């Protein structure tokens, strides 16, 4: 169905341009005076002294979830690296020490410069091993190779930084539910 777009004719005052200029000048002067006399009302944040608040569900730098004993939860199934549209995940599988689990990643590397932060890896993971909720967005390094983060970097997170409601994170070593989880796993 065709939609009629109304194109209102300009009035004489608008065509004359000068009254509209005066209106525009009023707007800018209003903003100027408001900012000058009540600077505390401006929608401004003193970044970087005051860090910005990033929501939990923001897709930021990745992390690998940990089992209660501190091993990576990843089973090296290659789902994430297959799903990755940027091909930034490199996984090399190795044998797991735990008899109940077949594989573990011997190498897990993400090139953060190549990553497009789409979140498909986190969605593809069948064991909820990779997450993108660290809220780290300011990635900086002086060399390109330092942007290739490996297992050690990805697992270097603290359960205390995550809320109590995030039970999966709290089962990792140092978390609130770790002792309980270790008991369930049968490890002391």
């Amino acid at each position: 169905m065709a939609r009629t777009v109304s194109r209102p004719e300009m009035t004489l005052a608008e065509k004359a341009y000068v009254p509209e200029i005066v209106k525009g000048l009023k707007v800018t002067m209003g903003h100027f005076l408001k900012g000058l006399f009540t600077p505390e009302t401006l929608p401004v944040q003193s970044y970087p002294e005051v860090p910005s608040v990033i929501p939990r569900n923001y897709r930021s730098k990745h992390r690998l979830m940990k089992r209660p004993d501190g091993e990576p939860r990843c089973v090296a199934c290659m789902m994430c690296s297959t799903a990755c549209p940027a091909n930034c995940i490199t996984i090399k599988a190795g044998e797991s020490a735990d008899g109940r689990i077949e594989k573990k990643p011997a190498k897990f590397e993400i090139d953060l410069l190549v990553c497009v932060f789409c979140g498909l890896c986190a969605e593809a993971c069948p064991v909820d091993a990779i997450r993108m909720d660290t809220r780290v967005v300011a990635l900086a390094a002086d060399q390109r190779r330092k942007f290739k983060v490996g297992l050690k970097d990805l697992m270097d997170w603290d359960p205390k930084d995550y809320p109590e409601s995030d039970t999966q994170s709290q089962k990792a070593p140092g978390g609130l539910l770790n002792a309980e989880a270790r008991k369930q796993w049968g490890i002391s």
Partner: protein
Amino acid sequence: MIDFDLPFWLSCAKFALVFIPLCLIPICIFLERKGASLMQDRYGPNRANIPLLGGFRFFGFVQNLPDGIKLFTKENFIPRGAHTFWYLLAPMIPLAVALLTPSVIPWFGPMVVEGARGLTSVSGQILDADAGVLVLFALSGLSVYGVVLGAWASNSKYALLGGMRASAQMISYEVSMGLSAAGIFLVVGSFSLTQIVEWQAAHTWGIVVQPVGFVLFLTSLFAETGRAPFDMSEGESEIVAGYFVEYSAIRFGLYYMGEYAHIAIAGALVSTLFLGGYQIPFMDTEAVRANLGLVSGAIVAAIALTALGIAWMVRRWARIYARLSAKDATDRKREYGVLNILFTLAGIGMLAVAVALVVLVQPAKIAVAGIDVWPLWVNLGTAVVQVGTLLVKILAICWVFVWVRWALPRFRYDQVMALGWKIMLNVALVNLLVTAVVAKLVKG
């Protein structure tokens, strides 16, 4: 041995006035940045500070310093295929022109002083030419050479496009600029800028007799200085940057400074032609001299009130502490505390000076060779007052430039040409015609 000739040395001392537009450049840049940011609901530059002065930031004014250091220390790049001589020459032209133009602007009223050859009149212009305003227009038109030459010598098609657009625009608007200013020449009956200002002091400001001419002239000056909404010579999305795209470091800085010096000159020109020039409203030069104590006292009192107002603003801006980090808030508290005390003390001190000026300064004429003239200190004091008045008017016009830039969207190129040739030129011609008829009927 040469006799000490006071008028000669006064004329030499007047050359210092050439540097006024240069001194106005950092103030204009500060005005632009702070005005722009507050109009866009931002704070604007506020991080640069002087470590030697306790990390004071002076509300972002210090930002000019690192910018200048950066421009001076960066690499002076010359692109391959550029015409080196012209490439190096071009950025100097706008700033050189901006340094030349103040020589024909009257900065204070003519004064009569006693010299080696009797009483001599010293003009407020460095170059007291009868056709001073023509010199001014000629110099103002010269600055387009810097733009076109730089654009052509850069050996870059984007720069050339920007330069062509700038030159076409400036030439178009120079026509309506001259024609809109012609009205005031007809009314006054002189090309001499000093006489135009004196006429305005005796009758009324030019903006009252030539309101249409004022608007046209101001608009033409926006186009002439290449400011928004007429910034055709620049355009990130169309021609990368404009005529200065190949310039880096201080050569780019020269263009940048030339633009702001041009704005200062434009402000001086508008003030001189339409806003009473160096005259204080409702007082001609003679009245200022007779009441120098009162006038200077009132001005110092006004400055004192401004200082107290700034102190009040500092206390007001202290409300943003709550939004800063702890360390930052401590630093700002210290700075704002010191500034508050400084400005309050300065305001109170200057109020005392104002009272002293009103009471103590009692100018009286002295007789030299049978003619009553004002003593030298009265003349010099009046000159200082009048230069200050003109500076205030220039800064007000500079503020209008900033204000308009952030209020209006820029024109398309064909709209600029249509406005210049089809509307402004015609309005200026009609204005000139009406003025000529009225002037003939009134003056006879």
